[in-house]
């Protein structure tokens, strides 16, 4: 009797396990295993073979995803007993994460060439973290969300401290670990409170599946005033704010960004932040939608402080990794504008956020590509001074840097400008005038430090000796092509936004 019950139960749950839906994640995990094997069985050519396999494999996944995205997306009902819920958003984010991961692997090649470090683990971890981010974007249950998030975070602990010969990298790793672990605990405590209160049999509309997003939404709609539920929501949002680097959870950003190897800094700045935002979007559109009275003021306050703090602290920095880190805090603030608009029911907010993330990806990787080339062996020591007179030493790199930074600053014809315009439009539709004021102030401040950096590249200071010979830098053709592609896409997205543009 018990045996029968068990079989029928397991059949009932297994019937929703459609593994084919998760093919990109499985492909990336298999690719990670393949990278391990390639490293094991290739002898002297391994330095070339490992990145080649990783990058070509990811490009294949990217093209398969792009091909599938051109087909119509059909909802597939309950998957994995409600653990996974793919949507149009998560399909686009899969493309985003693979694209970012290809670029990180490419930067990793540039970085690892200058270091005496093992190579294969870098690509392997990048692939696994990317697969976990894809799962994170589709999770519809707090257990799934937690496991995917921790796979990402633990992968990042290792990646941040990857430069194990450098005390800076290890220190960055330790700081990320302590603060990341604390934020995980805060997030978990929030989840536990929501689970406990959502399943409380004494409350109206209680549910037996309170870890599930849809079930929790039903409960919160009936108990929006419950005090414990409110604390749970605030704690969960705090945990996510740590990942996106919003004030007051931004303290780890400058140190970790500086200590981490440049490709990992890029990975943190782009993919990790994007993963945090997709989770936040899923939460405020799903389970936390009935808690509008709480989430709108909370996220608005965080957004204003984040924008101003990020921009004001970035001004005084000389290390370019810290500049990028703190300006990234400000970008998280702009993106929060979209999230607040989304809370207020402007559905377009989600697409404005995703478009902004794409422009941020292209602009940032153009800048990081130049940084990886200019950086010496001391990866953590990258000062603005190192860029002095870059335009004469290597005019191509200086050009890409100017386009990348211009896009991040939001200078009109470039992609970053359009991204900001879209975000501001949705914020205007949601009547967030205070937030808009803060954001525009922030953009004006940001122009100061972004252009300070560009100025270093194009002008020599007065004290610079005039007879100093120009030392040209060598950049290989493959990297030039990749950098040029990033710069061209950044310019083109400013003029033509495709399907994104027609929505606005």
């Amino acid at each position, binding site marked *: 009797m018990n045996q029968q019950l068990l079989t029928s139960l397991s059949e009932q749950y297994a019937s929703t396990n459609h593994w084919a839906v998760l093919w990109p994640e499985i492909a990336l995990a298999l690719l990670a295993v393949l990278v391990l094997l390639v490293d094991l069985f290739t002898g002297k050519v391994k330095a070339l073979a490992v990145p080649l396999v990783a990058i070509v494999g990811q490009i294949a996944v990217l093209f398969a995803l792009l091909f599938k995205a051109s087909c119509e997306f059909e909802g597939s009902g309950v998957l994995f007993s409600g653990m996974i819920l793919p949507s149009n958003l998560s399909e686009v984010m899969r493309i985003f994460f693979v694209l970012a991961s290809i670029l990180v692997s490419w930067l990793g090649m540039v970085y690892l060439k200058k270091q005496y470090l093992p190579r294969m683990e870098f690509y392997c971890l990048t692939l696994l973290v990317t697969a976990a981010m894809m799962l994170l974007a589709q999770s519809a249950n*707090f*257990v799934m969300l*937690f*496991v995917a998030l*921790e796979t990402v975070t*633990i992968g990042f*602990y*290792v990646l941040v*401290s990857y430069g*194990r010969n450098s*005390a*800076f990298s*290890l*220190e*960055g*790793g*330790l*700081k990320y*670990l*302590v603060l990341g*672990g*604390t934020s*995980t*605990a805060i997030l*978990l*405590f929030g989840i*536990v*409170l929501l*689970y*406990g209160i959502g*399943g*409380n*049999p004494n409350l109206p509309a*209680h549910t*037996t*599946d*309170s*870890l599930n997003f849809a079930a929790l939404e039903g409960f919160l709609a009936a108990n929006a005033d419950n005090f414990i539920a409110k604390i749970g929501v605030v704690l969960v949002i705090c945990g996510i704010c740590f990942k996106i680097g919003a004030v007051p959870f931004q303290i780890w950003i*400058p*140190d970790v960004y*500086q*200590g981490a190897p440049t490709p990992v800094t890029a990975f943190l700045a782009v993919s990790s932040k994007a993963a945090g935002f997709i989770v936040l979007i899923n939460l405020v559109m799903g389970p936390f939608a009935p808690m509008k009275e709480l989430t709108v003021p909370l996220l608005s306050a965080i957004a204003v402080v984040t924008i101003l703090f990020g921009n004001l602290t970035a001004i*005084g*920095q*000389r*290390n370019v990794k*810290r500049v990028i880190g703190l300006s990234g805090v400000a970008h998280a603030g702009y993106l929060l504008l979209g999230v607040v608009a989304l809370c207020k029911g402007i559905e377009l907010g989600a697409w404005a956020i995703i478009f902004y993330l794409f422009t941020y990806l292209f602009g940032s990787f153009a800048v990081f590509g130049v940084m990886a080339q200019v950086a010496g062996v001391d990866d*953590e020591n990258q000062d603005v001074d190192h860029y002095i007179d870059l335009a004469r030493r290597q005019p191509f790199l200086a050009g890409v840097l100017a386009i990348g930074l211009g896009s991040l600053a939001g200078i009109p014809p470039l992609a970053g400008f359009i991204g900001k315009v879209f975000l501001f439009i949705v914020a205007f539709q949601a009547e967030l005038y205070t937030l808009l004021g803060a954001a525009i102030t922030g953009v004006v401040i940001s122009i100061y430090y972004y252009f300070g950096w560009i100025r270093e590249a194009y002008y020599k200071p007065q004290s610079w000796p005039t007879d100093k010979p120009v030392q040209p830098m060598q950049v290989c053709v493959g990297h030039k092509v990749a950098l040029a592609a990033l710069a061209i896409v950044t310019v083109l997205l400013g003029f033509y936004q495709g399907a994104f543009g027609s929505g606005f």
Partner: protein
Amino acid sequence: MNIGLNEYLFVSGLLFAIGFFGVLLRRNTLVIYMCMELMLNAVNLALVAFSRYNQTMDGNIFVFFIITVAAAEVAVGLAIIVALYRKRRSVEVDDLNALSH
């Protein structure tokens, strides 16, 4: 004396607070690390208590996931601390100030 949900939640909240302030106030990396584990265990206790009170199994299952993830985190974390100790000959937070502006 009957021990109910509130007593468990009180202990859990207390453990969480001890862990949280430990992370903020202690200066030794290993002690900070233990405080982080204390916070995760506070969460586990609350999960089991809620799971029993709500008569659903999800919370009990979640505990296993948390324990597994915490083990992975400890493995990575101790490796980083050992590597850092080899470089700097110290695990005190006050000595870890190479990264500052």
